[in-house]
């Protein structure tokens, strides 16, 4: 081995020392940079990174609030939340999924479609997420699953809430129904609540459920969950309970509603009972009806088709959505308009020869031979048309329409129901604007008897009658209280009509029902303290040609159903101290006195007595028929509320 020279060793040692120190300095520099970087990230930027870490780790899950329940005016529950059970499965706990499902299907009947959907969902989602295998499972099935739990790994029963309408069809049109949130709903609502994004979350679709959605829904609670990188929940960090939806109490009396609904039967008809003083809607019936519970769990295509293709339109809430020519029930409006104008006195008579010629057009009275000389009282009692044609010519359409709006026709009443009809009280300006045509004198003549352009919903007719009965601007109300907070009553200020004029009209209406010559005499109330004052109406839905009139107007029985006249009746009772007003419309029902008036009398009595009225309230010849009818309808009554759940 060669030995290095000493000066080499010294040189080497010096060089190594120098170079070593240089690199050491470099290393120190790098470590300094690392240290500063650490300090910068961990001290200066710590808050920012903490926030990011928190976002990583914390997942917020909403807790759906309990939806507010709906009660009738007496505390009977109309819409409640019922516990439902569903069977869910966690894939990673199940192990052999197919074997477990095979065992499960021997215990519980599983819908193959739903199962297939669940299987595809299961393949897509993380193994620890629960997948619903069966929804709305009966309690017996749940208990079978619970007993066999050891043989069914990963399968657990879960509790959820579902909306139930115990009175089913009785209040379908008022309360409405809920259903799962659709894309349409999401697009419609601005700034939708996060809750709506929850799968299977239900919102009101129609009726009060829809219109009072914001009160009923409540506020979502939230759970802050710690999740790991794959989304698995590790633990619950905190929990903020939501706010339950508000409970609503309606003005509807469920027993009366049930009666009215049953009394309308399967006709395409509607009826409204309103409290004359407060405007409370005691019954708001529309027939035929449907079972809203069908919609909650998703209605089958066949059922839905059956509802939409039915010519009687069961889904429509005709009592508020229907707009009909009011026919002769509108005559009170014309009469009051004429009296208030001062141009007509109650005793003034018009001559009715059975028709009136106006600008080369012949307008007929319903009575071919005419009524002869007619004053106000007789004109209403016998429903003379020509009398009102003359009034229209004298006072003009503007006065009539103005009075119609004062009495609640052609104005929108603010009640939380879907598609509330505004009706129409036509004016010259309206026709010019909408139709682009001039107002014709014939239009006024038609309007005077509630034909032509005039439209009113049954509810508006009830409001009109209540206003005539009280002389005050009663407005309808359907929400009695929200979470036990009483809502403003519908009792209004005085309409400012001359009390004498009103008395004249009421007296004439009394005669309609109680005078031997009145159009509704056969449907009078026999009980003196309960006497009603009413008005029949028969509104045409077609034009009667001169040729037809010549050979004799076809009677309704000879016409196809949808060409027949609408039958209407409005009344208030008792005459001396009005408590309720009623409006009944039977679509294409024929005559108001024969079809609508009997229904209205039954409904009126039922409302006044709060139960089946004594037979003595009916004229003696009707009692046998009424007794049978009462027995039949009693069968349809809902069972008493066994839960005794009366709060509001």
């Amino acid at each position, binding site marked *: 081995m060669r030995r290095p020279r000493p000066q080499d060793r010294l040189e080497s040692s010096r060089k190594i020392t120098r170079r070593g120190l240089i690199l050491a300095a470099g290393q120190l520099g790098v*470590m300094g940079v690392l240290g500063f970087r650490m300090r910068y990230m961990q001290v200066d930027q*710590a808050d920012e990174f903490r926030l990011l870490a928190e976002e990583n780790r914390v997942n917020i899950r909403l807790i759906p609030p309990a939806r507010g329940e709906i009660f009738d005016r007496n505390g009977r529950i109309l819409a409640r939340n019922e516990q439902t059970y569903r069977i869910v499965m966690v894939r990673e706990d199940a192990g052999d999924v197919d074997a477990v499902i095979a065992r499960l299907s021997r215990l519980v009947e599983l819908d193959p479609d739903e199962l297939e959907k669940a299987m595809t969902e299961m393949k897509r989602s993380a193994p620890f997420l629960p997948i619903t295998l069966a929804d709305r499972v009966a309690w017996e099935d749940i208990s079978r699953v619970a007993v066999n739990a050891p043989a069914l790994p990963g399968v657990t029963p879960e509790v959820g809430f579902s909306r139930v309408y115990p009175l089913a069809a009785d209040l379908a049109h008022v309360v409405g129904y809920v259903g799962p949130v659709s894309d349409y709903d999401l697009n419609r609502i601005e700034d939708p609540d996060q809750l709506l994004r929850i799968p299977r979350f239900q919102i009101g679709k129609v009726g009060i459920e829809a219109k009072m959605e914001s009160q009923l829904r409540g506020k979502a609670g939230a759970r802050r969950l710690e999740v790991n990188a794959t989304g698995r929940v590790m633990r619950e960090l905190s929990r903020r309970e939501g706010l339950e939806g508000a409970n609503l109490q309606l003005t509807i009396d469920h027993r009366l509603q049930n009666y009215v609904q049953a009394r309308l039967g399967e006709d395409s008809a509607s009826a409204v009972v309103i409290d004359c003083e407060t405007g409370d809607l005691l019954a708001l019936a529309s027939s035929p009806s449907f079972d809203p519970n069908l919609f909650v769990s998703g209605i089958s295509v066949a059922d839905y088709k059956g509802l939409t293709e039915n010519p009687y339109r069961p889904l429509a809430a005709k009592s508020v959505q229907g707009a009909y020519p009011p026919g002769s029930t509108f005559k009170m409006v014309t009469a009051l308009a004429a009296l208030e104008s001062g141009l007509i006195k109650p005793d003034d008579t018009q001559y009715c020869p059975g028709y009136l010629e106006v600008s080369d057009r012949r307008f007929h009275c319903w009575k071919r031979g005419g009524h002869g000389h007619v004053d106000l009282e007789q004109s209403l009692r016998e429903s003379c048309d020509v009398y009102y044609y003359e009034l229209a010519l004298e006072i003009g359409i503007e006065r009539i329409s103005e009075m119609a709006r004062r009495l609640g026709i052609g104005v929108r009443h603010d009640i939380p129901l879907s598609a509330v009809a505004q009706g129409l009280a036509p004016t010259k300006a309206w026709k010019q604007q909408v139709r682009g045509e001039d107002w014709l004198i014939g239009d006024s003549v038609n309007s005077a008897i509630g034909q032509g352009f005039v439209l009113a919903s049954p509810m508006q007719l009830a409001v009109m009658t209540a206003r005539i009965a009280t002389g005050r601007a009663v407005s309808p109300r359907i929400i009695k209280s929200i979470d036990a907070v009483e809502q403003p009553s519908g009792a209004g200020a005085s309409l400012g009509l001359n009390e004498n004029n009103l008395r004249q009209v009421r007296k004439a209406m009394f005669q309609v029902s109680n005078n031997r010559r009145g159009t509704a005499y056969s449907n009078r109330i026999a009980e003196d303290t309960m006497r009603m004052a009413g008005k029949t109406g028969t509104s045409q839905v077609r034009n009667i040609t001169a040729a037809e009139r010549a050979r004799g107007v076809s009677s309704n029985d000879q016409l196809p159903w949808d060409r027949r006249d609408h039958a209407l009746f409005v009344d208030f009772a008792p005459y001396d101290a009005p408590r309720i007003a009623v409006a009944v419309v039977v679509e294409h029902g024929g005559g108001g006195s024969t079809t609508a008036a009997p229904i209205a009398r039954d409904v009126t009595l039922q409302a006044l007595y709060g139960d089946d009225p004594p037979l003595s309230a009916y004229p003696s010849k009707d009692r046998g028929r009424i007794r049978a009818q009462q027995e039949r309808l009693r069968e349809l009554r809902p069972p008493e509320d066994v839960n005794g759940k009366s709060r509001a």
Partner: protein
Amino acid sequence: MSYLEYSVQATPSGFRKILYLNWPLALLLTAVACVGFLMLYSVAGGSFSPWSEAQIKRFLIGFSLMITVAMVPIWFWRNVSGVAYLGALAMLLAVEFFGAIGMGAQRWIDLGFVRLQPSELMKVTLVMLLAAYYDWLPLRRVSHPLWVAVPVLIILAPTALVLGQPDLGTAILLMAGGGAMMFFAGVHWAYFAAVLAAAGGLVTAVFQSRGTDWQMLQDYQFRRIDTFLDPSNDPLGAGYHITQSKIALGSGGWTGRGFMQGTQSRLNFLPEKHTDFIFTTLAEEFGFVGAGALLVLYALIIAFCLHSALTNASRYGSLVTLGMAMTFFLFFAVNMSMVMGLAPVVGVPLPLVSYGGSAMVVLLIGFGVAQSAHVHRPRSRR
């Protein structure tokens, strides 16, 4: 230098050598390893299995090997340097060719208690061979181009093989470590300046090559570089590692969330939390104080090595000690830069802390050689 230089009287012999070990260095290494055990225990959710226990066993084996190597006189290691280098190179070739055929894409050889990566072994043997080379080479020839070419080849041969695996991290470590050895030995400045300039050119060329037929890096390596340059670009894909790592590190604050309270690592947001990214867990749970303390421990290890090297009159001993210190430094500097977003993710473990057998055992063997140099350093007779 040879054993003839040593004064037999002044050099410890037999078991007395143990007393002459660089004990502060050994204790510092043990302290760092203990930090590793603690963190592995934490990321396993408070459990010694699966990582901490295995890591302790490997450390004990590695520590014993270090003592054993330190007991063997340094001239033996100097004389076997070339053989060790060739052996490591042969193993690299073996995994390169037979590995590709017989063992899939494995980069390691199973030795039973540890899976040995030849590339790890190469880091130590390269330092040893270069130290031996410059010990042999007269100082005046060090900067002669011919004598510069030899170590360049010695460095490039394993680097090329490792790059072919492909393992960019180790390749960088080998190049930088070898280059540092040449620098310590006194090669002229101009060479380093030239190499740095050339490297700059090469980097440009590499980027230019992207997407062409003569592309020099794999696509995934390019993506890692992209991710490094802008991690927010792809926060859930390639940028996920670095983004989550920075979040964990940054959320530690001054004193951290506390032992076993690191949400990022415990909830699996951190990738590779027990290997390359273990530093982030430390930083999250113990904050700036804990992370800084580890950096200080590392700095002390470097400092003790430097002191040992500079007080060693033996050229081989100084060079090999400096080389080991440099290799160790490169390990943790690259790893920390990577997790703090200062360097691209290149797959370099945190020395003595990250879970992984071969890196730790080989590093401890390397420190064993440095210890041997310390124990057997020439002592002047007084």
